[in-house]
């Protein structure tokens, strides 16, 4: 049930694209539990956990940071996204079109598609670190931005070609395969933690704490890496899916929910994928570092293979592939919104080409934390616009869904909220050195404020004749 539901949503069939979901098509909470649990245990988890270790976070900061940050993420889904989704029951794109106009949505689609391409590219690179093992491929290191060898480029391009061909064939088979593999992959993460801890000499609760604090997350960053505090962990865990919750991408999914409370089912995804899996992959990397103390190599496939054997390496390939494939498909859909007359397979082929070229650059993997934060930040202002339009239009005296109500394809308040918010965030970063992980929160308030002020000027509510 949950698989068909997931497939229907992600494949963006023609059902209810421009109409609210009827009551007969609403789904129960189990569908959302399964979908969130599967979607957030993905290829990215094999990179993020190790990068926390490389950034020298301490054990206490990691555990408490993840508990708090993931809790805030669940609250964001439950209290911000789901109430709007179940009230309007429209896709993100259509809701945004009614507020911002078709012309602004086109730019949103373009940014979205590019971000999807880079995300898929990083996942192809992660898979390549496992595929390259039998060929003794030289793996990238933490400080690499450019490909090291022609062999890496060849491997990545071949993988990109295969993944693109599969994406051209359609989405459903890969979606089915991803759903089939999800329970096994979750267990592999648990297995990784158990085996890794044994290899690090843990045999009691006391030794678990000491190994966690002194060996795995010892608070010392690797050479060339900045040090992460509990604030980095809280904000990263909260905002790594910023595009989905406060950025409102999950309006498209949660519009099927019978109750707004189903937004809280996201806890299944974040506490499995963004707690257990990140901790497990961090343990795997610590085992690798113990055996290769001076190594700067950063290859999730090789790391998993060392501890879990062929099952670990295959898990990395599958996790990377099943994340990359739907991401390429989604990028294609976003681009098709801009070029509706171009055939789907051509769009997917172009997206696959961009993705494959991007995957050649290990920087996408090594800087995945920054990239994920950037991805959410770029899309977040439009989520703030939807929030402000929904909650403040009546209270603050401006017309809701400005583009629709004015019969326009372009809303200046929405566009300026997006551009000026990103300018504000860039200013905070350049002038005050605020790191990208912390820009989302002030940016969200700025986007809401700009949209409300400009909407009051551009789309004021007409004075009532009765008064």
């Amino acid at each position, binding site marked *: 049930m949950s698989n068909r539901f997931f497939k229907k949503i992600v494949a963006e069939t023609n059902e209810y694209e421009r109409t609210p979901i009827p009551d007969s098509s609403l789904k129960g909470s189990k569908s959302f539990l399964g979908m969130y649990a599967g979607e957030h245990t993905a290829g990215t988890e094999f990179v993020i956990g190790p990068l926390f270790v490389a950034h020298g976070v301490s054990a206490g900061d990691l555990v408490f940071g993840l508990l708090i940050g993931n809790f805030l993420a669940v609250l964001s889904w439950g209290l911000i996204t789901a109430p709007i989704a179940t009230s309007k029951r429209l896709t993100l794109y259509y809701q945004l079109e009614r507020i911002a106009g078709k012309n602004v949505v086109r730019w949103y689609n373009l940014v979205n598609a590019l971000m999807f391409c880079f995300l898929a590219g990083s996942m192809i690179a992660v898979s390549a670190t496992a595929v390259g093992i039998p060929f003794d491929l030289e793996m990238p290191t933490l400080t690499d931005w450019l490909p090291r060898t022609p062999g890496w480029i060849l491997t990545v391009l071949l993988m990109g070609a295969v993944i693109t061909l599969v994406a051209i064939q359609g989405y459903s088979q890969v979606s089915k395969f991803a759903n089939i*593999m999800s329970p*096994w992959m979750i267990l592999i993460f648990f*297995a990784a933690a158990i085996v890794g801890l*044994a290899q690090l000499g843990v045999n009691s609760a006391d030794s678990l704490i000491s190994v966690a604090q002194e060996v795995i997350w010892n608070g010392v960053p690797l050479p060339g890496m900045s040090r992460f505090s509990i604030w980095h962990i809280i904000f990263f865990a909260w905002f790594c899916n910023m595009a989905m919750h406060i950025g409102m991408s999950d309006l498209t999914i949660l519009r099927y929910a019978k109750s707004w409370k189903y937004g809280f089912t996201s806890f299944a995804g974040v506490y499995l994928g963004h707690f257990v899996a990140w901790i497990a992959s961090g343990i795997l990397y610590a085992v690798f570092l113990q055996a290769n103390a001076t190594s700067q190599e950063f290859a999730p496939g090789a790391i998993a293979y060392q501890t879990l*054997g062929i*099952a670990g390496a295959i898990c990395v390939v599958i996790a990377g592939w099943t994340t990359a494939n739907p991401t390429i498909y989604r990028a294609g859909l976003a681009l098709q919104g801009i070029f509706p007359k171009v055939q789907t397979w051509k769009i997917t082929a172009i997206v696959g080409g961009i993705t494959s070229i991007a995957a050649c650059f290990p920087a996408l993997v090594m800087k995945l934390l920054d990239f994920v934060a950037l991805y959410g930040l770029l899309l977040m202002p439009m989520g703030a616009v939807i929030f402000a339009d929904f909650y403040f239009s009546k209270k603050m005296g401006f017309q809701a869904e400005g583009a629709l109500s004015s019969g326009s394809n372009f809303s200046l308040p929405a566009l300026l909220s997006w551009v000026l918010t990103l300018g504000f965030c860039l200013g905070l970063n350049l002038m005050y050195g605020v790191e990208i992980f912390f820009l989302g929160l002030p940016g969200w308030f700025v986007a809401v404020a700009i949209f409300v002020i400009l909407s009051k000027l551009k789309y004021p509510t007409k004075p009532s004749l009765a008064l």
Partner: protein
Amino acid sequence: MKNLAKVFSLLGLLLTIVPPVLFFMGSMEMGTMKIAMGIGMVAWIASAPFWINKPAGSDQG
């Protein structure tokens, strides 16, 4: 057929998680554990498609 597949799938999951626990307890060598996990993976991949994603009434065998 579907029930048989479910048994193999369960076996696959057990072979994925039990050997690591045995390794942690010192009751299994790492090489054996890796082989068992590999077999578990094959069992899961070979059997799960026969029942996951299948509508409840689609079992023909």
